[in-house]
């Protein structure tokens, strides 16, 4: 059992289900963290990169 996955059992079902779930959450979290941190730095530096 993990604090964030109650009733965790080390079997293939849990590994696949929660592995996929946390994999997706991880990508989304990492992607958004990158965007937010980079945007904060860009805003502070005011790079003038105003076109997309």
């Amino acid at each position: 059992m993990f604090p964030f996955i109650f009733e965790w059992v080390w079997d293939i079902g849990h590994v696949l289900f929660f592995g996929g779930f946390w994999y997706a959450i991880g990508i989304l979290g990492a992607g958004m963290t990158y965007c937010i941190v980079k945007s904060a730095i860009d805003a502070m530096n005011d790079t003038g990169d105003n076109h997309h």
Partner: protein
Amino acid sequence: MMDAALIPEGAKRCSFPKFMLGIAIVGAVLLWGVYAMLLCWFKGLNQTNMNDYYGFALWIWADLAVIALGGGAFFTGLLKYIFKVDELKNIINFAVIIGFICYSSALLILAIDIGQPLRGWFIFWHANVHSMLTEVAFCLSCYFAVLTIEFIPNILENRQLNKVPFFHHLAHNMHGTMAVFAATGAFLSFFHQGSLGGVAGVMYGRPFAVREGLLIWPWSFFLFTWSAAAFGPCFTLLVTRITEAVTGKKLVKDNVIHLLAKISGWMIVTYMIAKLIDTWYWAYYTAPGLGFELSHFYTNNGFYGYWILVAEIIVCGVIPGLLLINKSTRENPNFRLIAIILAVIGVSLNRWVMVLQIMAVPVMPFDTWALYIPSWQEVATTILPVAYGIILIAFAYRYLPVFPQELELNQSKVQES
């Protein structure tokens, strides 16, 4: 106009009072749905006509239908960001908004359906890892997060928000990394769209639904994913057409519409070939092998006749597919409109058959057909997402630069104003 500072630069919009009058009319319908939703939450599911014999409310069909129709978001995103079909940048914002509306509606419907939404988190905390619906819940929640992420840059491009340096850079950086989010969205969509079909396919006690398959996945798993990718873009095209009719403006260039219609058409045709093979094999081998003739599923009742099979597969499947792959009919606005309307009806009918007809067909010798009449609360909560969708699209269109080609296509109107 009192909200002129929020409207995209150069864009022409109706007056604020006129806009709010429209919102108030649709808002009244929304409130009707909210009232019915609150009745279900506070008084319980006895507000529906569900019982121990028939456990699927009308909104479950709506849930599966909006998820299929919202498939245009993931498929258009896949084409735009992964396969680099650059023309689709002119419709991707709207596809994302439609997807956002469909998936938020689906989650709302599920919140009503579970009866006690305060226990909604149980599915994560006490996950049944042998259930395809658990996978659907996981992927649906994650994919809604993806759609929110895809929608945020468009919101941040609002004229006022974009003046804030951090928001401006955030929109820019999120656009830059959107391929990662779109790929994640495609991965999640493949599994949750499929698992919704898989749920029907593994019902061994329901010969109308059960299918053979590949490893643990019945063929209905792949057909659901395929159909969402095929028919979802038609819903995007249909809502775009409706928005153009309501606003009286051309919002997307014809070459973009033709391209998406062509891709959708070929997806529909290939899907229909697979669906015809699946239906034929089920009718001649699977169902008879379980002791049922085809006629058992379409006779001896007052509603479900062979007409529904013909309507789903031929009229609203094969015909729109052929209309969209043929250049002359695809590029004819009337034929294209007929095709996308038929396609939207077709995939909705497929979800109806795979959810509600399954429950209606008698299985045991002493069973009778369960012809279900929904309560008004079910009807109101099913219409609720439509009203919500209209309001969200109205606000998005008014205040966000949703259609990149709008100004170019309506230059003369802007100059006149």
